[in-house]
């Protein structure tokens, strides 16, 4: 594609999430396990990733809601740690992620004589989300233009092109790398560095900054990055 073939522009999109109550809730570990068995797959995604676009504190101790609930509502530190270490990027789809969560919880259930309960006002509420995606009208025509555009992207765009893309596209890569593939190996180093960014433990603002840094260090003029 680096030769004469037509270069497809990068279409910059943006998105917003609407959170929806599922009505399912859990007050103890068994109920959490039963909820996980039945809940809509989007709910599992929401409890891992939705917090990035919904109210959540930057320095949150745990980056998924299941771990945080185990720690703060059930006061089960061990389970909180085991759930907290689960990285959704390690699983090929949400069903595999669901099974991992259930396995961890069932292991913990097997270890316990008595199952702790959360207070009535600290139940786990399963929430799912709808994502609304829209075109910003922005187009990136050349890779070097990433330098100017990335720092101006909204956090919704960052979410859509980096987080959502890894779930949305069969290649499971972010949209920037997917777009750069049309230039052959020319940007292989840049792609490797983009692949090295771990979006799980940082906020979208920090992720935008990290993308900006990686792209700024890429010598676009010299051909190979």
């Amino acid at each position: 594609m680096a030769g004469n073939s037509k270069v497809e522009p990068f279409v910059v999109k943006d998105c917003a999430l609407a959170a929806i109550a599922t009505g399912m809730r859990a007050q103890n570990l068994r109920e959490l396990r039963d909820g996980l068995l039945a809940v809509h797959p989007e709910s599992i995604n929401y409890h891992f990733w939705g917090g990035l676009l919904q109210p959540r504190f930057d320095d949150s101790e745990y980056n998924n809601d299941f771990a945080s609930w185990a720690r703060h509502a059930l006061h089960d530190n061990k389970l909180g740690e085991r759930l907290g270490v689960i990285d959704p990027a390690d699983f090929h789809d949400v069903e595999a992620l669901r099974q991992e969560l259930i396995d961890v919880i069932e292991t913990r259930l097997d270890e316990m004589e008595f199952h702790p309960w959360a207070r009535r006002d600290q139940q786990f509420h399963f929430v799912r989300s709808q994502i609304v995606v829209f075109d910003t009208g922005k187009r990136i025509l050349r890779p070097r233009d990433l330098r100017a555009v990335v720092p101006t992207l909204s956090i919704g765009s960052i979410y859509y092109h980096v987080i959502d893309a890894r779930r949305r596209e069969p290649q499971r890569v972010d949209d920037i790398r997917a777009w750069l593939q049309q230039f052959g190996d020319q940007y292989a180093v840049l792609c490797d560095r983009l692949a090295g960014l771990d979006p799980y433990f940082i906020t979208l603002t920090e992720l935008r900054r990290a993308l900006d840094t990686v792209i700024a260090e890429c010598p676009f003029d010299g051909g190979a990055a």
Partner: protein
Amino acid sequence: MTQLLKSYADVVGQDVIRHLSQLAAPLKGLKVVHVNSTRTGGGVAEILDKLVPLMRELGLDVRWEVIKGETGFYQCTKQFHNALQGNTSIIPEALLKEYETTNQRNAEELGPVLREADLVFIHDPQPAALLRHFPDRRGKWIWRCHIDVSHPFRPVWRYLRQFIAPYDASIFSIADFVQMLPHPVYLIPPSIDPLSDKNMDLPAEEIREICARYNLDPERPMMLQVSRFDRFKDPLGVIEAYRLATSFIPSLQLVLAGGGATDDPEGDVVLAEVRAAAQGDPDVHILLLPPDAHRTINALQRAAAFVLQKSIKEGFGLTVSEAMWKGKPVIGGDTGGIRLQVINHHTGFLVSSPEGAALRIRYLLHHREKLAEMGQKAREFVLENFLLTRQLREYLTVMVALRHGAGDRLDLG
């Protein structure tokens, strides 16, 4: 960009306003109607007062209608309010009849506007029964519940549910407040307006003048709780925490600032208890402020070293975000929406007793650098999560979702 949007862009950034404009693009020209029961006073009117002009700026054709009723109607809806929050409340049949006929009368008055609207937001239970009078409606109707109905008095919820279930969607503030309904139940936390009198920047001179008016010593630390004189806000627990803390920090001043108690018969009793508990201590300032004392509250929040919201039961508790927006950490009761705003050890502390509050008071006053750091984090947290622009973004998202189908992913191209 209009002046209003520019003013918000100055606070939240251009990218946030651009994002809102793009999200609103598919909704341009749509007729949107908000209906509630009061034009002034109360949190709902306060939000609509800002939200409606902002939606208009984004190109939507928005109206705000207010239903009218007689005394019996408001007696009934006040009892609804109490019952939905869990109080046992047997409402006489005559009042329920008044509720239904008032809604019918308002439906006749608002008929053409509501029938033609593309999206109708009905706020809280007062106008909820309007929907049944519009079998020929063409738009989507959304019931917006601002109340915690997690544990309602069941007979009253059952009565109201018959009016609410046929809506196309409902919106609650947080998942804990929800009652499930046979339609999508969206979650949108409330927000504060950074440009309102209550939250805007104030000149240092005005803050000094207001502190002087209430005999507050600017050289000594002051802590503040802003709330009605209500047992659920635990003002007596605040005084107890103050007493425990002053044995270590004698220079501490406490301000309990609240509104009058005209519509709350228990308010006078609680106020009397608070005054008795203060025992004439000149450093405990109990201020009864009028409902429009927004700048005074703003100044007191800015003058405080930190803020308390030591509720034992709370709805969302937006006074927490108001204080945090002014860079103040909050010592808050571990309950309700306070938990969503006070992130323990980061934007403040969650406490469960006067002793816990006293401990955190001492900690903050002995670690001024930590106090400043937490205050900074608190402001940033509100900037990202609890400003009006975030709430507007979520309203727009729900509106787009309702107009374009029920799938998990709506790609508008």
